[in-house]
């Protein structure tokens, strides 16, 4: 790209209407970024026009909308010339053509068992807890108060919480459970001895054994967590919540199983393709990336749909993204995340919210952003908030 023609640009529109400029704003890369940085340095008088041009182009990008992926996939099946084997359409973003000659069931399958066994550690009510805790089998409790806590468990038996290390008895023949409790308003990232990363959201508890069994790895979850499981085909990873048990073979997924919610939701974000033993059989449901599995506690029904995964996993990166979400639920999530009281006026249920919220901001700022975009007003009273119709 040459700077010459841009030197003559006088107005903001000149930049906006140039195709290369637009292309850079929408698809930036290092090369183009440095071109524009040096251009701005050499022509400081054009700087604010360029920044306004960027702002306007970015403001003109519509919010993500949901697409009925299953319906679209069905249409493709109907459209395809007959006689050919139907190749499964993974997701619209995938650029590789479906010459990956695998059966539908291969990929990152999650086997779901509706859980009848009573083996489940007793939960502690999260609302009663103010500090984060780790409880060892021998009863030792370590508390921590950081907003964001990093916990690492090593194979040698050491457990570190932020920068402190405590030794856990690793020489026992029997394995015992370590329980991590995260109160509302705080979050934690846990690394297990096998390299699996787990991000625990506010108001959640995770129990894991000091030593995994020889043929499987099991953890117990209440609340919400994002899992990035280290693949190990010989030792499948199980996430057990009160109602469902999930078997994973090296994937990234988000599970939301709060006691007070009516449903348990699991969203699969990414899965490793493993050839061989993946087959669907009775009593289990398979999942592919981009799908959400919902377990309804009131009738024990399991249902599956396709979702925009960012809406479910963005909290790990510090954002909440919503798409036509009833505004009450937006506030429920914010309440949990910040651990501050938010009351909602009657009749506000009809309003829905779409947008992206930065969880790094304080709650006041976040609520102001929500108010800016919807027709509501925010009133503050000693750290608790009231949402009113405009």
């Amino acid at each position: 790209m040459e700077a010459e023609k841009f030197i003559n640009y006088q107005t903001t529109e000149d930049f906006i209407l140039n195709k290369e400029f637009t292309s850079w704003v929408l698809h930036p890369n290092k090369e183009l970024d440095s071109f524009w940085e040096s251009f701005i340095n050499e022509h400081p008088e054009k700087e604010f026009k360029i920044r306004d041009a960027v702002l306007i182009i970015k403001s003109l990008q519509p919010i993500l909308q949901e697409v009925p992926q299953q319906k679209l996939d069905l249409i493709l099946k109907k459209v395809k010339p007959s006689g050919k084997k139907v190749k499964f359409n993974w997701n619209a973003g995938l650029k590789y053509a479906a010459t990956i000659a695998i059966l539908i069931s291969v990929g990152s399958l999650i086997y779901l068992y509706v859980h009848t066994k009573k083996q489940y550690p007793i939960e502690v009510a999260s609302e009663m807890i103010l500090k984060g805790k780790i409880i060892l089998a021998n009863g030792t409790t370590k508390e921590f108060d950081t907003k964001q806590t990093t916990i690492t468990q090593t194979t040698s038996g050491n457990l570190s919480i932020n920068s402190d290390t405590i030794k856990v008895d690793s020489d026992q023949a029997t394995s015992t459970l370590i329980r991590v409790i995260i109160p509302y308003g705080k979050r934690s990232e846990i690394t297990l001895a096998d390299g699996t990363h787990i991000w625990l959201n506010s108001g959640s508890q995770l129990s894991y054994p000091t030593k995994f069994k020889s043929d499987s790895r099991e953890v117990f979850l209440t609340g919400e967590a994002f899992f990035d499981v280290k693949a190990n085909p010989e030792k499948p990873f199980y996430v057990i919540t009160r109602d469902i048990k999930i078997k994973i073979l090296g994937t990234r997924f988000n599970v939301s199983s709060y006691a007070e919610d009516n449903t348990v939701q699991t969203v699969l974000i990414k899965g490793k393709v493993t050839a061989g033993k993946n087959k669907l059989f009775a009593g289990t449901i398979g999942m592919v990336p981009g799908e959400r599995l919902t377990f309804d506690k009131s009738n024990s029904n399991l249902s599956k749909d396709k979702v925009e995964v960012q809406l479910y996993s963005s909290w790990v990166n510090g954002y909440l993204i919503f798409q036509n979400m009833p505004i009450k639920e937006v506030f429920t999530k914010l309440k949990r995340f910040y651990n501050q009281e938010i009351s909602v006026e009657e009749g506000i249920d009809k309003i829905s919210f779409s947008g992206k919220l930065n969880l790094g901001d304080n709650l006041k700022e976040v609520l102001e952003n929500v108010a800016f975009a919807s027709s509501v007003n925010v009133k503050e009273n000693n750290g608790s908030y009231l949402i009113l119709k405009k």
Partner: protein
Amino acid sequence: MVTFLNEQLMSDRDIWVRFKAGDNDALNLIYADYSKKLYLFGLKLTPNHNIVEDSIQDIFTDLVRNRRKLGDTDNILFYLLKSFKRRLVRQLQKEKRYNLKENDEEFVFDIIYSIEHDIIQKEKANFKLQSLQQAINQLTPRQKESIYLRFTEELEYKEIAVIMEMSVEASRNLICKAIKSLKDALQGDTSILLFFLQKVV
């Protein structure tokens, strides 16, 4: 536009040629990339998903049936959007004939833009953004459609002209006028305000 097909970098032109020749991997790729965009575009013309889905199915059925006889293209999205819009509008007009409704509007393009919250965070002068947001909301449906095609789907003026059934000159003017109104709202006619964004991107 270039994409990967069977791990080879291919241009729209090549993928289209392959599709015409009978390659179903090319069909899958085209469908995977564009069915979603057609759907989202269709929803901006009507809330009726069923008609949108039917039109998508019709377009692709025809494409597959007549594949060998199709023309060539450098821009598959443009080719599809053009046929899709025509088909969809025709269907909507048919529906209208059987529905006796008082509101006799044209099928106008409707899209909601909401300035991203992280942009709002970085900008100190919120009131200017509110005025920009207002100006965006006040764009006419034609302006919104042309802007969507130019700044989200990145089509050329001549392609936009075909899809919107106007001359190239007119499509360029339509977009220029719209952009100018947004710029005026953002910059106002008071003295220059410098905006500090942390990073350009």
